């Protein structure tokens, strides 16, 4: 079954995962910049990370016939240090023309602090000035609802940003409607313990419809599953969803959103 993995942190995964994803029908993998599990000490560390995302990782994916795309930013978990964030954001423009860069992400909030808000606004301004797509991370657990509201306020306040060019990721039952009502795309992250399970993701599709929604695994250095999307497709099949409905959710929808960036191209 053909699918797109629109959010996976492959730098944290072993090469076997690329093989498994390719075998499962993955047609492309997209990798937002994120927190490495530790705070990087300087902007130079981010420069090297951006090189990894735009030079090395596409080559690793290509060995399995997988187009690899990336998103760039300083993630919210390292946004409390505004000076560092300014230095990192200043690095990004020179990477934006690289052939696999789709936009700015995953930006957003983590603990919903004032500095995180300031850095979010800086990223949104960067995206607006360079006409980039935006991929947004929403906070975890008890911080998600408040963080989603604050993020939506920031995005709505910038008239240069078209809602249809923004995906708000990690939605759950209490935030998905806020996002869809704002005209933005909603990402459902299939992740053990936090975010949502395959059955819950399908529940949300059945309740809120399948427009402007994608599913992703967000696999990273934590306990996570790079095959969560095809496993959820299987769950949809068990529930009697048609093949066309499944393909729309796991392939056509992400292709439609990502295709707003002309650099997003799939092999025939």
């Amino acid at each position, binding site marked *: 079954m053909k699918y797109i993995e629109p959010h996976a942190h492959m730098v944290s995964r072993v090469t076997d995962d690329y093989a498994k994803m390719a075998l499962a029908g993955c047609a492309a993998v997209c990798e937002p910049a994120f927190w490495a599990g530790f705070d990087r000490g300087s902007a130079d560390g981010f420069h090297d990370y951006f090189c990894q995302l735009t030079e090395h990782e596409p080559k690793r994916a290509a060995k399995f016939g997988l187009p690899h795309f990336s998103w760039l930013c300083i993630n919210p978990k390292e946004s409390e240090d505004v000076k560092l964030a300014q230095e990192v954001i200043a690095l990004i423009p020179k990477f934006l023309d690289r052939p696999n860069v789709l936009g700015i992400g995953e930006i957003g909030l983590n603990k919903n*602090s004032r500095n995180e808000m300031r850095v979010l606004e800086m990223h949104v301004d960067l995206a607006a000035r360079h006409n980039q797509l935006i991929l947004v991370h929403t*906070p975890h*657990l*008890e911080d*998600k609802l*408040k963080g989603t509201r604050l993020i939506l306020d920031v995005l709505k306040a910038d008239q240069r940003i078209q809602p249809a060019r923004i995906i708000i990721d990690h939605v759950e039952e*209490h935030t998905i409607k806020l996002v869809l009502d704002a005209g933005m795309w909603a990402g459902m992250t299939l992740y053990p313990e936090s975010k949502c399970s395959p059955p819950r993701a399908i529940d949300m599709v059945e309740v809120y419809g399948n427009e402007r929604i994608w599913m992703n695994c967000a696999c990273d250095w934590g306990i996570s599953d790079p095959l969560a999307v095809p496993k959820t497709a299987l769950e949809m099949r068990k529930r009697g969803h048609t093949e066309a409905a499944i393909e729309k959710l796991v392939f056509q929808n992400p292709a439609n959103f990502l295709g707003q960036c002309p650099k997003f191209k799939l092999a025939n």
Partner: protein
Amino acid sequence: MTRQQVLDLYFMDARSKLIDLAAFIDRVERAAGEEDFRMKSFREALNHLSNGHREKAKQVLLTFSDPTTGPIPAATTKAACGAYPGAPN
């Protein structure tokens, strides 16, 4: 899916998770010491499971959520703990 089909597909899984929840509460109650704000929210969330209202998953998530609206002064930690402590961060 019909209600019968939903039950056929998911009942055993849900039954297993319910027993895990019950065992977790037994474990907490067997242990020495006091419960904290997380268990308080947990018990509050459990109430949503047996009432007649729809959107139970949403109600549970809202129970655990920070209800305040403004940004906090500064992030002093990176991790979330799963329930709102009820005091300023």
